[in-house]
């Protein structure tokens, strides 16, 4: 400082002012350049985000809706329930398909075998299951004729949406002129309506896009994350408490620390290989179950939880520790009465961020068989299940065109799930956080 002052005194005041003036412009220009680079970067990032959201929402929102047809179905008791005991077995072996088709034929009057074959293509393959389920839930419906709403086949749905065009030559179309004629009749009679799909949220994986839904994958994700949390949170927090509060600073703890930091950077697929070798190979657990998936993801999120928990613990002001020790608290009392209550918001935030990452993982699950086509909705952590990102991945690969919309719809559901988790993290942090 003193050196600079000396220079100024030596310099002519006017000259000094000139130098400063010329520099000010240059410096301001540099500031502006830096600012605009920053703005440009934000603009680029935002436009990617906007592009992503627009394309996902443009495709995904129609995926939540689909076309239905309402038909008057005669729920004939003898034909629906041949064994007469209302057991699922009897209902599934009954004649529900024929009853539904008869109701359809009544509306469109197909003539001959060929036209009837075409008419069969209009309804989803799930129509008879819907009838069987309705009767199973409410046996008093038997013997009545009631209007029932059925999903239309995916090809008909994409025709009604205009994805399959009427003016395409018949041979190049997935549906022929006879089918189109029948669909026109149904539309004219106002039996077809476009409404919120009751399959997308409550259906499970299916090869028919019109009845495919995310429920199985959603429950699979929840079960997997549950196992992941049960495993990783206590172990992670206990590790952080030990390392911060009890461990002596020596070579061994240093090695442990370095390894934890390294583990956080290990590609996730490696944990899948570990899971395959240990949980499935050594312990002989079955493939494809959320228990194994949750354990693999739990090991994967451990380092994240340990690191963030340690940061949270070390951020507790030493004066609080000193005060606790000062009044004669033991280490355990200090930890549980003072440090942890103050560190818990940081720990939870780290845990939820780690879990959010686990929610989006598919690579480690590939190894342990959770990247699979699984129809049954899992009831426990020991039943085969898949997770949301896997469902998205599978749908993206199916040839049927209506899966394009479903893929984006499932992405929206995954995003909502993620936003909810992050929202919980922010809420907890704001609620529990204390400032000094």
């Amino acid at each position, binding site marked *: 400082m003193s050196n600079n002052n000396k220079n100024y005194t030596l310099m002519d005041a006017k000259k000094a002012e000139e130098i400063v003036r010329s520099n000010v412009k240059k410096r301001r220009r540099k500031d502006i350049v830096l600012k605009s680079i920053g703005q440009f970067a934000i603009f680029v990032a935002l436009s990617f985000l906007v592009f992503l959201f627009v394309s996902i929402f443009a495709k995904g929102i129609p995926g939540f809706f689909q076309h239905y047809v309402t038909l008057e179905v005669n729920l004939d008791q003898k034909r629906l329930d041949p064994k007469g005991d209302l057991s*699922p*077995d009897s209902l*599934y072996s009954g004649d529900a398909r024929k009853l539904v088709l008869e109701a359809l034929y009544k509306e469109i009057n197909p003539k001959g075998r060929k036209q009837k074959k075409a008419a069969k293509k209009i309804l989803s*393959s799930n129509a008879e*299951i819907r009838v069987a389920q309705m009767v199973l839930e409410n046996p008093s419906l038997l013997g009545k004729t009631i209007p029932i709403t059925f999903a239309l086949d995916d090809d008909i749905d994409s025709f009604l949406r205009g994805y*399959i*065009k009427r003016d*395409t030559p018949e041979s*190049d*179309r*997935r549906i022929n002129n006879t089918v189109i004629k029948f669909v026109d009749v149904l539309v004219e009679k106002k039996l077809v309506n476009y409404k919120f799909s009751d399959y997308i949220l409550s259906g499970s994986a*299916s*090869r028919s896009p019109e009845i495919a839904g995310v429920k199985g994958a959603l429950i699979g994700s929840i079960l997997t994350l549950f196992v992941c949390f*049960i495993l990783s949170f*206590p172990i992670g927090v206990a590790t952080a408490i030990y390392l911060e509060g009890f461990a002596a600073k020596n070579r061994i703890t240093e090695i442990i620390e370095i390894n934890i930091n390294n583990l956080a950077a290990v590609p996730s697929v490696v944990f899948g290989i570990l899971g395959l070798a240990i949980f*499935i*190979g050594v*312990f*002989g*657990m*079955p*493939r*494809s179950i959320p*228990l194994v998936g949750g354990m693999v993801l739990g090991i994967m999120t451990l380092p994240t939880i340990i690191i963030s928990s340690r940061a949270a613990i070390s951020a507790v002001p030493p004066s609080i520790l000193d005060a606790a020790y000062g009044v004669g608290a033991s280490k355990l009392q200090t930890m*549980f009465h003072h440090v942890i209550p103050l560190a818990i918001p940081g720990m939870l935030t780290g845990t939820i961020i780690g879990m959010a990452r686990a929610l989006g993982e598919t690579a480690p699950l590939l190894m342990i*068989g959770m*990247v*699979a*086509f*699984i*129809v*049954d909705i899992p009831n426990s*952590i*020991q039943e*085969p299940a898949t997770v949301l990102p896997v469902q998205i991945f599978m749908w*993206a*690969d*199916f*040839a*049927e*065109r209506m899966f394009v919309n479903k893929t984006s719809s499932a992405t929206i559901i995954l995003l909502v799930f993620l936003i909810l988790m992050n929202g919980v993290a922010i809420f907890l942090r704001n609620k529990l956080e204390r400032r000094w």
Partner: protein
Amino acid sequence: MLNRIIISLVAFIFSTNISLARDYISIAGSSTVLPFATIIAEKFGKNPSFKTPVVESGGSSVGKKNVCEGVGVKYIDIGNASSRMKPKELEFCNKNGVKLTEIKVGYDGIVVANSKKGILLKISKSDLGKALTAKIPQNGKWIDNPYKNWNEINPSLPNLPIRVYGPPTTSGTRASFVELVNQKGYCAKDKDAKAASLGRGDKKGKKCRAMRTDGAFIEAGEQDNLIVQKLNEDPNAYGIFGFSYLDQNSDTIQGAEISDTAPTFENIASNNYSVSRALYIYVKHQHIGVIPGLKKFLENWKLNWSEDGILSDAGMIPMSETEREKYAKAIEELPVLTADILKK
């Protein structure tokens, strides 16, 4: 408080008695067979007395390897493959004490397709192999494939750069394509290539199976849908994938005529279209009777693989009636797969 949490946690972990029995069928393998296997699985699962089988993807080689890894619930029950098991792969099975039954379920055509906005490719199998194989003979020497445009190979072909999207090496579609087109269509047919192959001690032309890596052939992953999307964006590019994807997108993409035959359902079924391969499932003998419903599941294939079954709706090409009878019998009797059967 904390004690209670810890105790209940430990109790929870020990109370979830990890049952080792598996009561659902586990399947893995070819991504070409997967759409058809999942259709059968879903249909099978609608019967309330059985759970829906779990179908994993991974590619033909993964399916054949995983099914051979051993006997026990932690191994899969059925391996799907779009290329037949090789004696070497069967040896791996025998080493692990696994007995298999081979069941052919149908055929799938491999198509070379592009957008309807582009030029329909009419190409001989030999020219197609010449365009895509990594090395071609010139004056008795094998050089890197020099062709940049289609019309450099044959003036009747379009004046477009060669740009073909296709599956990676783990795929059975790829394995069948390189065998049928590069090897049998080109190196075993073309005069120069045949002579040059003999010259390097490669009588059958197997060395021609390698695909170009200079950008003319682009690996696009196991996702056939992705290739279809790329074709719609780029009318000058061609793509290699299974017939079912052409069938689903017949209003926007067209299949190339290979050796004067268009890839239609009828042509593939009647064996006129030569780039097609059989689809197989390999069932583990030792698991029949252990995993509930395994035999019933096989019978479900039998019920649905005919011309008017649901599988042909999804784009699978059915077998001839005599073949269907043969494999229906195999499902009944479950003959053990031996190296001799594979040689036939």
